[in-house]
């Protein structure tokens, strides 16, 4: 009896501690007392697991760290105080833009002298003035789809006008800034880009900082992906062979991947790695990256569209059958099929997963048993359940397998 009373006292102390009003006596009691009842011991285990300290293994640097560091350094550079230009005194956004452009130029190893130094080469497109970009809010009013004009830096292409030619790829030599009323884009050295007739800019490789000071958005295309930088936003887009990333420094942006749209707020970023197989040996048949399809399927699920999710998972498996993402997709597809009474399909998907193996093999084996039971294949289900219990003796699913 004393035992139960102490357990009750322990539970009251737990509640008080969680609510932040434990007395010193309760705190001391919590430190010293180990509950004895089965439920209380399980509750103590729950609280101990929840209070577990961060793991040492978490100190390993993640693969996204470089992107985050790049974004931070860019932001820090763009917000560092700079002397205001006389013409821009009193305007809030312009000094930041000058700082950002200057930071990009410094990073690319350019100097102001490059702006006027290559005019004799007909294959160079270059800035018409050294003073970089004029204040956007004093730029002449014009169509949002007006041609992009070079404001600073230089690029290699077959034209000598300061306007970017439409649909002609160009290679940036020194950090290049192009602008049109209300919008500007600065690309790092060695970037490749193309101005589209639609007003969008296609970034083939490199890094571009997009700024919209206008009510309209700016579109940058990365093949299957389109980045929409909203009005009054600064968005940094990086595209390399290994993948791409979009980081929003201020404002918002939408990233559209094959009909699926993701909205990013200031401080957020999105990145995708290229599929190694598709990079190493591009197929003549058009395929979509596995990671893109997986993200799209998840978006369907998030939007409450299981049918769309199932179609996308199936497409992923068809296009990238040997990728790790396809294995994840098999499991997700199987579960969705089972939940929607597509039991035979679910059984096939669970078995396809089990054939290849993976971290979710236990879940897949349990799913296989559920599917067999649903199909009325009782003897097969019994054999599978026996094999399951032998293979996963401590499984939480064990209790559900009792006949």
């Amino acid at each position: 009896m004393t035992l139960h009373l102490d357990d009750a006292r322990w539970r009251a102390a737990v509640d008080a501690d969680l609510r932040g009003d434990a007395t010193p006596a309760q705190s001391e009691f919590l430190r010293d007392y180990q509950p004895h009842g089965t439920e209380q011991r399980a509750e103590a285990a729950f609280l101990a697991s929840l209070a577990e300290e961060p793991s040492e293994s978490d100190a390993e640097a993640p693969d996204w760290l470089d992107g985050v560091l790049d974004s931070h350094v860019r932001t820090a550079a763009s917000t560092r105080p700079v002397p205001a230009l006389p013409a821009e005194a009193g305007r809030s956004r312009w000094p930041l833009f000058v700082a950002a452009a200057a930071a990009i130029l410094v990073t690319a190893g350019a100097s102001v002298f490059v702006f006027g130094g290559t005019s004799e080469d007909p294959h160079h497109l270059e800035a018409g003035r050294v003073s970089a970009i004029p204040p956007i809010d004093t730029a002449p009013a014009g169509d949002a789809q007006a041609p992009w004009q070079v404001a600073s830096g230089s690029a290699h292409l077959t034209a000598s006008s300061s306007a970017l030619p439409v649909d002609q790829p160009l290679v940036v030599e020194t950090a290049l800034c192009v602008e049109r009323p209300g919008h500007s884009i600065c690309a790092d050295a060695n970037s490749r880009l193309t101005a589209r007739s639609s007003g969008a800019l296609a970034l083939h490789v490199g890094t571009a900082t997009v700024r919209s000071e206008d009510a309209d958005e700016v579109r940058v295309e990365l093949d299957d992906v389109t980045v929409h930088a909203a009005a009054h936003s600064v968005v940094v887009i990086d595209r390399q062979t290994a993948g791409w990333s979009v980081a929003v420094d201020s404002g918002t942006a939408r990233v559209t991947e094959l009909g699926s749209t993701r909205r990013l707020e200031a401080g957020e970023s999105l990145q995708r790695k290229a599929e190694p197989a598709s990079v190493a040996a591009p197929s003549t048949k058009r395929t979509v990256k596995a990671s893109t399809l997986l993200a799209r399927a998840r978006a369907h699920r998030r939007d409450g569209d299981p049918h769309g999710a199932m179609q996308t998972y199936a497409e992923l498996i068809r296009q990238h059958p040997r990728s790790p993402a396809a294995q994840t997709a098999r499991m997700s597809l199987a579960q969705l099929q089972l939940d929607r009474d597509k039991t035979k399909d679910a059984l096939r998907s669970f078995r396809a997963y089990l054939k290849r193996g993976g971290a979710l093999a236990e879940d897949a084996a349990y799913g296989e048993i559920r599917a067999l039971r649903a199909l009325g294949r009782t003897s097969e289900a019994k054999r599978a359940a026996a094999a399951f219990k032998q293979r996963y003796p401590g499984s939480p699913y064990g209790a559900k397998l009792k006949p």
Partner: protein
Amino acid sequence: MPQNAPTPNRDAQLALCKRVAEGDRAAAEALARQLMPVVRHAARRLTRTASDAQDAAQVATLEILRSAGHYAGRGSLNGWASRVAARSVVRWNARHGTPLMHEHNPDRALSASAPTPGSEALARPLEAYLDGLPEPQRTALVLRHSLGHTIPEIAEVTGAPVPTVRSRIDKAMTRVRAAIRRDVQLGTKGASA
């Protein structure tokens, strides 16, 4: 719980944060690596899937780097970072987090915690119990007991009044106890041990 006692290397931490705020990439990397366990811990506990945890951890890391200049050295760096990360993850979760959709979530299995000492007394993984809670209750309980926030800090992070935070924690524990009782009655492994 965050450690508030002064530490001998506080000056070094402040100097590091100052360099981060100035855009020093090497300093930013050093700080990010130092605080990575704290960030990942917060992201894993407060989100429902491994992919969500990854995304939220990125945003939280960036937020910490951008806020480094505000660290005044009054508490421990880890405690400060934990609060910044938690606020960032909670905000991210509200906008992008994956809702609990059905019984089995393959992504959740990828982010499940490794067994901890004593966890064998639990019939199911910790995440299974947390996933059974409505989001506000789960967030309040995790912030309080896993990340060591005070009740007023939780109120600030979640934008809820203090009494509401206490109520959410109470309700969360009631649900967890009910789930544990059910598992015990079913005679699953931990309970029968």
